[in-house]
């Protein structure tokens, strides 16, 4: 506990100091925070619950559109805004921008959670690969349909409100960095506290054998929906931040980007190790560094590299980094069921 506490403080201080230590990488660091949030929350139902979803991108994209729409719609007519495209006739004052962002993020987090709750009962009754394909279908359908809706920009995209002029050029990067870092900390605390409760054990029971879990008297459907809703909450939040950060929303290339973000979150969690607390975080960090390297040095070939990376990780490394560490050093990284119990066992030996 003590050692971990020091580690957390160190990471927190590093996180707070990072934008000032590496001012050139502020946007990259913010994206990293968002990626970690996505991977960690995918892991709740992908890793712990065993429901491998390709559809969390649905909540991410919804959050993105909702946050931007609320931010614009609170002060200006939305239809005129999207119609004007790049040339803005309306300008947000700083107060309007931050108010809109705050309300927008709340909406972006709450509405996907409600939607997850509503569709959860129907979708989560599917198992295994049917669930995976069904959620893949949901994500792509959402992208295709939102690409046809006129008021949120249809095919031409939606420009989110530009950051207001508050005097400092660095302000935009710092604002989005701290916003995403705060979300990351919030996610981490939430996920960590979830993982130390009975709820996590129930999720693991569902993963290991759902029928048996049901036979033991666990209302599996209720817990599955709750797990899915927690994922949706943070995905929506991450989407809202990402929309502001990118500054432009396109239905299939930015928001409901199943080909990129939708696969990334699965891949990051698998790379780090499914079903562990730190796995998705480590996986997301390594993946982000890899990805930026590819995107910078092999421009044009990045998807080829990505495709090869997916195949290699999935075939040769399905346990992930944490899984490998667990196997190699079970004393340090193995799952501790009960400290007292384990000590007693060691003494017996």
């Amino acid at each position: 506990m003590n050692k971990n506490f020091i580690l957390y403080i160190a990471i927190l201080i590093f996180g707070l100091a990072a934008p000032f230590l590496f001012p050139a990488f502020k946007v990259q660091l913010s994206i990293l925070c968002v990626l970690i949030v996505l991977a960690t929350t995918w892991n709740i139902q992908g890793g712990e619950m065993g429901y491998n979803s390709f559809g969390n991108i649905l909540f991410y994209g919804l959050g993105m559109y909702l946050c931007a729409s609320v931010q614009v719609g609170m002060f200006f007519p939305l239809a005129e805004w999207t119609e004007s495209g790049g040339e803005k006739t309306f300008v947000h004052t700083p107060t309007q921008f931050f108010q809109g962002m705050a309300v927008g993020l709340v909406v972006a987090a709450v509405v996907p959670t409600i939607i997850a709750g509503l569709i959860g009962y129907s979708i989560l009754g599917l198992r295994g690969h049917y669930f995976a394909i069904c959620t893949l279908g949901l994500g792509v359908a959402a992208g295709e349909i939102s690409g046809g809706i006129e008021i949120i920009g249809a095919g031409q995209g939606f420009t989110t409100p530009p950051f207001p002029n508050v005097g400092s050029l660095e302000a935009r990067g710092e604002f989005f960095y701290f916003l995403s870092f705060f979300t990351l900390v919030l996610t981490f605390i939430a996920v960590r506290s979830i993982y130390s409760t009975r709820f996590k054990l129930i999720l693991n029971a569902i993963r290991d054998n759902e029928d048996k879990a049901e036979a033991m008297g666990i209302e599996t459907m209720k817990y599955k929906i709750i797990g899915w809703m927690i994922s949706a909450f943070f995905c929506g939040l991450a989407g809202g931040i990402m929309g502001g950060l990118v500054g432009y929303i396109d239905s299939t290339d930015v928001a409901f980007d199943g080909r990129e973000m939708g696969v990334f979150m699965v891949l990051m969690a698998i790379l780090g190790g499914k079903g562990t607390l730190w796995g998705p975080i480590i996986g997301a960090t390594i993946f982000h560094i890899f990805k930026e390297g590819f995107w910078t040095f092999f421009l044009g070939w990045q998807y080829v590299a990505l495709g090869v990376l997916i195949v290699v990780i999935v075939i040769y490394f399905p346990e992930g980094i944490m899984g490998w560490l667990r196997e190699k050093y079970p004393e340090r990284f193995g799952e501790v069921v009960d400290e007292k119990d384990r000590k007693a066992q060691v003494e017996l030996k």
Partner: protein
Amino acid sequence: MDFLVFQYPMITLQACLDGILLGVLFALIAYGMALQWGVMNIINIAQGDLVILGGYIAYFMYLYGIHPAWGVIVAPVIMYFVGIAIYKLVINKVVDRDLFISILATFGISILFMQLMNFAFGADVVLANSGYGTTMLFDNNVVLPNSKIFSAFISIVFAICLVIYMKKSKLGRAIRATAQNARAAKILGVDTEKVYAATFGINAALCGVAGALISITFTIHPYMGLPYTIRSFMIVIVAGLGNLPGVAMSGMGLGVFEEFADYILGTEFRIGSVFLLLVLILVYRRFKLSRKREYLK
């Protein structure tokens, strides 16, 4: 929203005929999907990309002055070896594993193929012009391009040939035996590794035929693969594995559904409606089965 389609019977007829001719093609792709799913227990997300690759082979023949209809013969031959290569490199490592692993691995292949095709052939929407003209029916009220009739005819021919091959040939028997019980087949001397490779190759060849036909009748584009995968998946789950008449019927049904969705909702919602239909079908099946305390397996 345009309900003209219901007021004029000729438009309805046009949509139905278009849908059926399109659906035959879907059924051909879905048959390949059902084959590999049944035999190897993998779901191939790259199915649609194999189709598009087959289409580009026909398109290239068209570019070099050969009639694209010959692509129907050339594309499956090339695609068979592409399929074998994919099997040897990737699929044989995921055959016995969890289905989700195969989904993710083939997703990777799909992304890889998309981008490679984008490099090799460019991101333009292309079609190979067959120059077959059109057929007018019912006082010129219903217009059917001859290429569509040709493609439906060729698909049916290939499907029938394949069914006969699966019934009569030695390899076909081995494939069916492996699908029934891989272990027992192995004990009785069937080289299952070879059977798997052949199955994947045949599936890729079917995709090649379908792709060549699609490049003649419709358009192809490097990123258009995923909808074909989803369509074939949908057809297979509606029809069930190894139910060939079912695959044909549900393929045609899907084609008709798509044409009507196109007329009623507008072209921009066409692909979206296909994906939504998949979700609805799965949810419907789930509720139907949950009454018996069962789930989709």
